[in-house]
């Protein structure tokens, strides 16, 4: 697909926003400024943005504990997200959810999730709803290599095929589920597993926006046409520990550095668009600077924003009770 210049700018910008969002939370967290359990997706930007590139607002995604990137890629309010990270009343979830529960149903984002694999059934439901309503909307379920062994995900693969749901399972394989290598925990063959459930399955380079975008486009088109569910195996890496605080000593020395040097998603994108003369270095630098300023602004603001009022604690458990 030929991208317009503005599209390329938008794609790069979104990836850069994710990276900056994560990098800044990382530093804020090291300073003890961020409450709660945080899982960062730096390194995985291309996959989130490449998949969501093909989605409308009315399409739904579900995400994982490592959900900032997906949430941003789906178009949710980054400012409100940052406020949520800082547990502010003005946060995306009014300070009730935090990093692991970022969600914006109106934007088609069903939520990050503290429970590994739990998003897959939710996305099946959103896909079913789309079908029952007779729209051509689809749903995406993002999950990790570790989650591929959860009953919730495995049952969902089967259910999605039985009901011929318009859903794409995006397995973001960063090589580890917490401290456990995927090679240990995922037996057999990743693509064949999905294929054996009757899904179409493809593998893609999750560091490369263009590869992800193209693969997702094919699979999503099929799904919109009622041709059924698919799995996209997106191979990528995370830059930080499993959670903020994890020194990641289970990774071989130098693993992350090598990837950063050779397969960084922003670097690959730049290389491609600069090489093909689609965007100039200056144009890209400008985006970088703007994003750095934007995210910094959010952080400054979020730090000063008021926390939720204590009375709100008692609200929102029910619509009525």
């Amino acid at each position, binding site marked *: 697909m030929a991208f317009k210049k503005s599209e390329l700018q938008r794609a790069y910008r979104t990836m850069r926003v994710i990276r900056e969002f994560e990098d800044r939370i990382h530093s804020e967290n090291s300073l003890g400024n961020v409450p709660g359990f945080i899982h960062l997706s730096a390194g995985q930007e291309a996959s989130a943005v490449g998949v969501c590139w093909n989605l409308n607002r009315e399409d*739904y995604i*579900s995400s994982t504990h490592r959900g900032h990137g997906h949430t941003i890629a789906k178009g949710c309010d980054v400012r409100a997200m940052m406020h949520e990270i800082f547990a502010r009343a003005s*946060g*995306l*979830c*009014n*300070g*009730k*959810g935090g990093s692991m*529960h970022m*969600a*914006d*149903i*109106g934007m088609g984002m*069903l*939520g990050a*999730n*503290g*429970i590994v694999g*739990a998003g*897959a*059934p*939710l*996305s*099946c*439901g*959103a*896909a*079913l*709803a*789309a079908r*029952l*309503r007779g729209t051509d909307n689809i*749903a995406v379920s993002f999950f990790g290599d570790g989650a591929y062994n959860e*009953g*919730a995900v495995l*049952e*969902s693969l*089967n*259910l999605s095929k*039985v*009901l011929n749901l318009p859903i794409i399972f995006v397995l973001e394989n960063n090589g580890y589920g917490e401290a456990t290598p995927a090679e240990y925990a995922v037996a057999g063959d990743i693509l064949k597993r999905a294929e054996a459930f009757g899904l179409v399955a493809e593998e893609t380079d999750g560091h490369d926006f263009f590869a992800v975008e193209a693969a997702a486009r094919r699979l999503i088109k099929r799904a919109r046409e009622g041709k059924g569910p698919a799995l996209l195996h997106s191979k990528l890496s995370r830059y930080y520990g499993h959670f903020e605080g994890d020194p990641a000593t289970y990774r071989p020395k130098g693993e992350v550095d090598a990837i950063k040097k050779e397969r960084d998603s922003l670097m690959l994108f730049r290389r491609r668009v600069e090489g093909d003369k689609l965007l100039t270095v200056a144009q890209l630098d400008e985006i970088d600077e703007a994003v750095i300023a934007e995210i910094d602004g959010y952080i400054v603001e979020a730090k000063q924003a008021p926390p939720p009022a204590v009375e*709100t604690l008692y*609200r*929102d*458990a*029910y*619509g*009525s*009770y």
Partner: protein
Amino acid sequence: MPQKSIREAINEALLLEMRRDPSVFLIGEDIVGGAGGKGEEVDPWGGVMGVTKGIYGEFPDRIIDTPISEMAYIGAAVGAAVSGMRPVAELMFCDFIGCCLDQVMNQAAKLRYMVGGKAEVPLVIRMQMGGGFSAACQHSQSLYPLFAHIPGLKVVVPSNAYDAKGLLITAIRDNDPVMFFEHKGLYDDKDEVPDGDYSIPFAEARFARDGSDITIVATGRMVKFAIEAADQLASEGIACTVLDPRTVSPFDEISFIESLEETGRLLVVEEAYPFCSFASEVAAIAAQKAFYALSQPVRLLTPPHTPIPFAPELESAYFPDAERIAGSVREMLDAAAPKRGAAA
């Protein structure tokens, strides 16, 4: 008014709501039956107890049979609810919650709260519960206390056909996840049930019998036994209030406390396990909020703290029945303690 069984009442509530609101759909295992098969009937089962029988004919696209994958399809119902539908999922037996609790407890129940109120989960999960069939320990449980423990869920336990229909209609129209418990031993119990649609508000207990000597709180099948016992006791000159909360969560504390203020005595009769149960909760509410009204110790009549046995002889000793309810009431009234109520 026409007499209908609970089975018919529930079927009717589902049909009426499906006609009224196109976002209502049903999902479950064998709630149609024979999917994709070569049998002669279009809906050979309609659920294991025939509750959804006949709906397929009118709404073939809105009643969906799934593989045996509770986590996936209950979760799909949650996902469909969040994205704007009003699914009524059937979990064949509440005992199977062990296979899908996460989607109920961590997703459906918490979604609204965790996003600061900016989501709705208008989901109903219908489940069978209860003993009396020698169905043994994995098919006889009454696990509503487990659900009632979880904030974010509403829990409904109807005891008769009229209530079943009205409460199910309320449940479907409610914007929160509602766990709807159907006692497998009551499906054939008949009652006067209007044909049209009507709804019964949550947290409004029903006074099944009025009497000033004692308050008996009972749910589900136990209401039937409590009424039997109360009628027997009435002939002995003992006047029992039988209070059927109908919804366990939210619970109608007001009616309950009012009743205790009148009677001063409390017997709670439950079919569920006793420990950390709804029976305990009712007793705890009394001890907190109607303490001075009570004239003597609260009494709970429940199964013992054991799994449910298979043999009919053991099973019938396991569950409370009318006779044991009456016996408990007599013992309470015989107890020497003076009535304390107003004095305090």
